[in-house]
């Protein structure tokens, strides 16, 4: 009997007859397929494509200017995501005047939706191809609904209401889920900012050295400026890394050092400098042969051959300039920072932390005469490279998606002493409020 054979004659006839048979599919099938795989691959670019049923629903909805909100279906689990459903050929026109109770319209096109479905606490991604969804508008209830048949043939009702913004709430017999159309584009990852700040500079004496303490008692911090350009790259929604190039100057005023000019004619200069001034940041050597220095009070602060018992500036008729000298150090900074966004609102708050590599580019000691600088010399044995740690709080006010105003109170602490001389252990710190604009791209 043929039934018991593996193969019946008719099996072979059909198998061979249909083996290489081809039938051209309807032309729009490819468009639908492409739509779905494109949605999956490049969700961001999808917004601009053809006409998006979901977006249109959104627009339609918001043009209705509905004030009331309806309560959403109970026990719906909320899931995020994706764009976008698009009709393949014809843009479904679903806009129309709101009618008293409800308005229903059949959209004669297909739409693809990617959504995440939460089922049994697992999130699954689903691609849905909706054919001819029925759009129901409930103006009084502030909602729109999409009625369509899903793959498995169970009717699905997607409700759209104002309280959920671009969300769809969907009900199904065995699962309940929400589709949130995510209209927010992935933010630009790069940003560039120009920032500047007045900087208050001071230092800690971590060594507890008595002499240094004494020296520091006559030293005053000065306000200086720093600024530069910063680049940052966004790694995730909240975290970005930042670098850039800054120029910063630190400085201090040393009291009790009288300076005179006109010393050169008496200068029986031996060696390369006539005076040495001790400061907490290191020893200052005079480079200007015309300058004469004397200390008020403690005489031990200045090392020189021209002590008061040897040379009297008044008798020599030197011209008195000032009783203070200023030390200045300028650095080019290369920061490596991490920003963490704590609050992401109209005004964003960021925590900023990291380290900076500081390259010493200028080192000068001067005093002021009639508002202009009178050079005295420079501080010896400074570390050419120092490392500082940075801690800041960034406030970012977004004017637009691209442009924002940044204000960043920043505290930095120098991890190694500014001076390379042994014995000094003074760590400067500075506080500045950086402000500037940043541009994202």
């Amino acid at each position: 009997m043929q039934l018991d054979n593996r193969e019946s004659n008719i099996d072979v006839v059909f198998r061979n007859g249909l083996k290489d048979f081809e039938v051209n599919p309807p032309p729009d099938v490819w468009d639908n397929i492409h739509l779905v795989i494109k949605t999956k691959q490049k969700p961001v670019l999808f917004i601009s494509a053809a006409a998006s049923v979901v977006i249109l629903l959104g627009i339609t909805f918001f043009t209705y200017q509905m004030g009331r909100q309806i309560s959403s279906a109970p026990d719906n689990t909320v899931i995020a995501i994706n764009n976008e459903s698009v009709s393949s050929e014809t843009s479904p026109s679903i806009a129309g005047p709101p009618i008293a109770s409800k308005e229903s319209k059949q959209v004669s096109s297909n739409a693809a939706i990617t959504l995440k479905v939460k089922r049994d606490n697992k999130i699954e991604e689903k691609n849905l191809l909706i054919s001819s969804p029925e759009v129901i508008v409930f103006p009084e209830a502030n909602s729109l609904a999409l009625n369509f048949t899903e793959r498995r043939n169970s009717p699905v009702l997607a409700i759209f209401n104002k309280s959920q913004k671009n969300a769809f709430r969907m009900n199904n017999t065995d699962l309940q889920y929400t589709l949130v159309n995510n209209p927010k584009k992935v933010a630009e990852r790069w940003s560039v900012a120009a920032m500047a700040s007045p900087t208050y500079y001071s230092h800690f004496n971590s060594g507890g050295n008595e002499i240094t303490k004494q020296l520091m008692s006559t030293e005053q911090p000065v306000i200086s400026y720093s600024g530069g350009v910063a680049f940052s790259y966004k790694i995730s929604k909240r975290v970005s890394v930042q670098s850039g190039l800054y120029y910063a100057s630190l400085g201090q005023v040393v009291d009790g050092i009288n300076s005179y000019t006109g010393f050169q004619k008496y200068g029986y200069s031996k060696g390369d400098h006539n005076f040495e001034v001790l400061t907490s940041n290191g020893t200052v050597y005079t480079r200007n042969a015309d300058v004469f220095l004397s200390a008020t009070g403690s005489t031990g602060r200045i090392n020189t051959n021209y002590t008061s018992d040897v040379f009297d500036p008044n008798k020599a008729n030197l011209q008195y300039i000032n009783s203070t000298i200023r030390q200045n150090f300028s650095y080019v900074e290369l920061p490596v920072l991490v920003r963490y966004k704590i609050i992401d609102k109209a005004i964003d708050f960021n925590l900023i932390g990291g380290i900076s590599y500081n390259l010493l580019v200028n080192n000068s000691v001067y005093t002021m005469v009639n508002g202009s600088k009178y050079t005295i010399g420079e501080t010896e044995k400074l570390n050419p490279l120092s490392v500082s740690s940075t801690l800041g709080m960034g406030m970012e006010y977004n004017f637009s998606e691209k442009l924002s105003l940044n204000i960043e109170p920043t505290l930095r602490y120098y991890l190694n002493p500014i001076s390379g001389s042994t014995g000094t252990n003074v760590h400067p710190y500075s506080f500045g409020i950086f402000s500037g604009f940043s541009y994202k791209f």
Partner: protein
Amino acid sequence: MSEIKKIINGCLAGNRRDQELLYRRHAAKLYAVCLQYSGNDEEARDILQEGFIKIFENLDRYKHEGSFEGWMRRITVNTALEKFRSRHNLYRVDDIDQIQELDAEPDNTDYAGLEANDLLNIIRELPPKYRMVFNLYAIEGYSHKEISHMVNISEGTSKSNLSRARVILQRRVCSYTGIKKKFAIG
């Protein structure tokens, strides 16, 4: 690299041209398969669509072992099967008891002159359950045991569905060829 491998890699990289090329090359053959598994065109079209979406989504799993066409065909058949499973409760199989008597008839049917299109139409006219079992057994080469798992029926049902499908097919073929002959003579 073979051409198909190039196209597959292009698809994986998201290249639209390669995706379309892959579709254009294989759609007609796979659509014929979809039609074979479905009684109505709308459903066949859905199977093709969903099947291809799965093909693209799972392309990275194709290991370039065995025929690519066979791999795509399997996905398409599975899609048809899923669709069938999700709605098989909706179908009612015709009462076929009388036909059973014809089982034992020797197969002396004249198959000559039947074109692929005729065969396709005949197969599509089968009740869905018979069509599914016949397709899986006779065309795809699955055993009754495998089919019983795939379609969620017993092996016995699979066997009886197959034999009933064969009987119906034979009868339809007879009437087809009869008509064709008439026309040829007339």
